[in-house]
């Protein structure tokens, strides 16, 4: 029952991958830099996460083709946490303790991140998390390259309020923490902007909900009160198709009650009959249809890598693209892949994003992003109808929640605190514990 055996074949596996890759002959004889990839390759999340694994492998291959980093080769270490949340923690521990990787790119769901978080902090690893999330978290060891609520949800609501003239709001979501938190923030935000309680309807459904008849009919009712109504949807994954179908069949189209979704991207659309969705909205920080050369180059290399002419790109892929380049830049800057050095070096690093601008790592470990609103088209792409005039920096702590209003996060010396309370002037509980446990 030796625990070494799983690691040995993995090394073989990685080596095979590398030999397939265009390996640069000029690379130094030093040990490779190990990049851990922690995405589910089986189970329910494999749908979304396995493409992110491929994205990482592609980025690593490209980097190696350019001579690696600091003259050292990059070696991907792929593990499969199988959409099983406790397994995420176990596999993260394996990556950090057994395989001794220098950085981990991974996770999709909030719960998997929460599961991994204590492990990454305990073993002082680096984790790049590429998906939009609910915020309310800041860790010294985690870099959030996806959108915080203020980089997606809030601007989308702004757009609907100011550009579309929406007065009545349905906040519909799947019952888990991301929609709950996002809707809490939006509710507070809407009320701050003078929306009455009666004009907000909140609804939660279970994962994979497929019978939307009642809810859609309620939405139709709610929307027939003489005020422009919109649905802000944090409905997750599989529940979306039946939801939009029901909307379409009950005769509600985007002109009547537009739906703005935060979890519907190109990849999700690729598995849907898009007809009922056309005209509905989505808010992201990247769309495949963005008309820039860097984006077209990225898409072309993705298509070449996958060999699938119809392969799509999406927002979390861009987040990995940015995260990987930031990390690589920070390693170059620090001159080493050593975690603490990279952690300090990466703050302030700017790399190009795919939408024609730059992304910068902020001291709170979130990055700057433009916010785009796109309309769904029948080809499964988005046509961009609005974007923020400049990039928005991610907030770890929302300004609209009572518990976190006074918290800020700054991981630069000398503060080094993820939840500094500006009113009380002290660093909050989590960090104390950190200090206590280090001592």
């Amino acid at each position: 029952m030796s625990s070494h055996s799983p690691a040995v074949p993995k090394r073989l596996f990685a080596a095979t991958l590398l030999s397939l890759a265009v390996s640069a002959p000029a690379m130094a004889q030093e040990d490779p830099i190990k990049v851990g990839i922690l995405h589910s390759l089986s189970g329910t999340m494999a749908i979304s996460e396995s493409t992110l694994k491929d994205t990482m492998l592609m980025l690593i291959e490209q980097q190696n083709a350019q001579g690696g980093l600091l003259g050292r080769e990059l070696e991907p270490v792929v593990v499969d946490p199988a959409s099983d949340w406790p397994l995420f923690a176990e596999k993260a521990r394996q990556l950090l303790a057994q395989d001794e990787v220098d950085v981990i790119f991974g996770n999709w769901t909030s719960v998997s991140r929460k599961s991994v978080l204590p492990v990454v902090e305990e073993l002082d690893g680096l984790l790049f998390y590429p998906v939009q999330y609910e915020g309310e978290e800041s860790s010294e060891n985690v870099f959030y390259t996806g959108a915080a609520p203020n980089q997606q949800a809030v601007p989308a609501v702004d757009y609907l309020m100011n550009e579309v003239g929406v007065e009545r709001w349905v906040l519909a979501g799947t019952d888990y923490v991301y929609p709950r938190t996002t809707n809490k923030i939006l509710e507070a935000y809407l009320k701050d902007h003078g929306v009455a309680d009666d004009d907000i309807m909140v609804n939660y459904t279970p994962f994979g909900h497929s019978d939307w008849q009642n809810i859609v009919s309620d939405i139709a009712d709610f929307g027939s009160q003489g005020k422009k109504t919109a649905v802000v949807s944090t409905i997750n994954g599989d529940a979306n198709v039946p939801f939009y179908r029901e909307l379409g069949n009950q005769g509600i189209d985007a002109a009547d009650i537009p739906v703005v979704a935060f979890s519907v991207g190109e990849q999700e659309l690729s598995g849907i009959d898009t007809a009922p969705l056309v005209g509905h909205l989505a808010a992201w920080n990247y769309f495949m249809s963005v008309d820039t050369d860097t984006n077209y180059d990225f898409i072309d290399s993705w298509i070449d890598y996958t060999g699938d002419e119809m392969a799509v790109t999406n927002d979390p892929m861009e987040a990995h693209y940015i995260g990987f380049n930031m990390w690589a830049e920070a390693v170059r800057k620090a001159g080493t892949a050593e975690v603490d050095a990279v952690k300090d070096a990466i703050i302030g690093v700017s790399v190009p994003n795919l939408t024609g601008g730059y992304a910068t790592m902020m001291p709170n470990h979130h990055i700057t992003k433009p916010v785009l609103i796109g309309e769904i088209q029948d080809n499964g792409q988005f046509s961009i109808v609005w974007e923020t005039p400049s990039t928005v920096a991610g907030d770890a702590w929302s300004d609209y929640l009572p518990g976190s209003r006074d918290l800020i996060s700054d991981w630069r010396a000398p503060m080094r605190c993820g939840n500094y309370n500006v009113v009380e002037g002290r660093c909050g509980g989590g960090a104390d514990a950190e200090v206590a446990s280090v001592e």
Partner: protein
Amino acid sequence: MLASRSWLSRPLRERSTQIFLGVLLAALAVFTLLNLIVPAGHPLHVSTYTVTLLGKYLSFALLAVALDLVWGYLGILSLGHGAFFALGGYAMGMYLMRQIGDRGVYGDPVLPDFMVFLDWDSLPWYWHGFDMAWFALLMVLLAPGLLALVFGFLAFRSRVTGVYLSIITQALTFALMLAFFRNEMGFGGNNGLTDFKELLGYDLRSDATRLGLFLASGLALALGYVLCRAIVASKLGRVSMACRDAEARTRFLGYRVERVQLFVFVVSAMLAGVAGALYVPQVGIINPGEFSPIFSIEVVLWVALGGRGTLYGAVIGALVVNYAKTVFTGVMPEAWLFALGGLFVVVTVLLPKGVAGLLASLRRRRDDDASETPAQGASS
């Protein structure tokens, strides 16, 4: 008292139990020594990562033993044992959450973080008391025990058995999963409970605590095994098997079949709860996923593979399947479900008695050979 002590100690006089305990305790000692004494980097060193992994396997093994008690000896195939496991886990998780105290990110002295950001202003009633270890440990037993008692009372009274019982146990765990996914329930919804800091004052991140949990799991497995063996070897155990093989006959002999079933079912549920409570601090998270029907069915596979009706078989099954899972998901993730699915088919079609049955029949054949040869010699 004397009588009760004697029924509990009965298994200690059995050779099979002595061997099982001997192997288990020796393995615990060896891994502990390899972890503590052999320096890191040495090929024989067992890392804390491995120790934690083994601790997880051991808690799964205890769950498998609990399931085997009801399936192997009582003939009740519970497809919802994950529910009891998860309830025990949640009871432990709630204790661990309360231990965080004001070290959560929001620094609230009482409320766990997820309650703070969902605007709860006070602790729900069912969270009270979980700051005390004794209460939480009691709940680890009582929560699954009570659920099993109520559910079992209703089901066995109405003589819901066989396939029907299996299907409604599955419905039970499915309903609980949906319920625990609801954030209104106050158990952290999909995210569950996580970010634990310490257990009984010991830092959960320290290697010593992890080793301690590993040993605790091993001891719990040993105790659980002895308890189950004691039940199985008692007259009650024989009555259980009687219920399994000929329920009506047992009833006509004057036994209250439903009470026997209820008793064994509740004991099994409590053991499953203990397994869950040991599992949670080692993996660091408990969430509604543990309630998923698939997990419960997987547990059944462990027992089936090891050999139902032999408690040591359940332990072997749990260890083998989980070790295989660790290896497979590391080496060729896509193949894991094929392997697991294939295992289900192969075990039920070709190995209905599991590995233990295979071993037993091999042994029997050897014994027969051995005993027949001289007999033939004598007769000729």
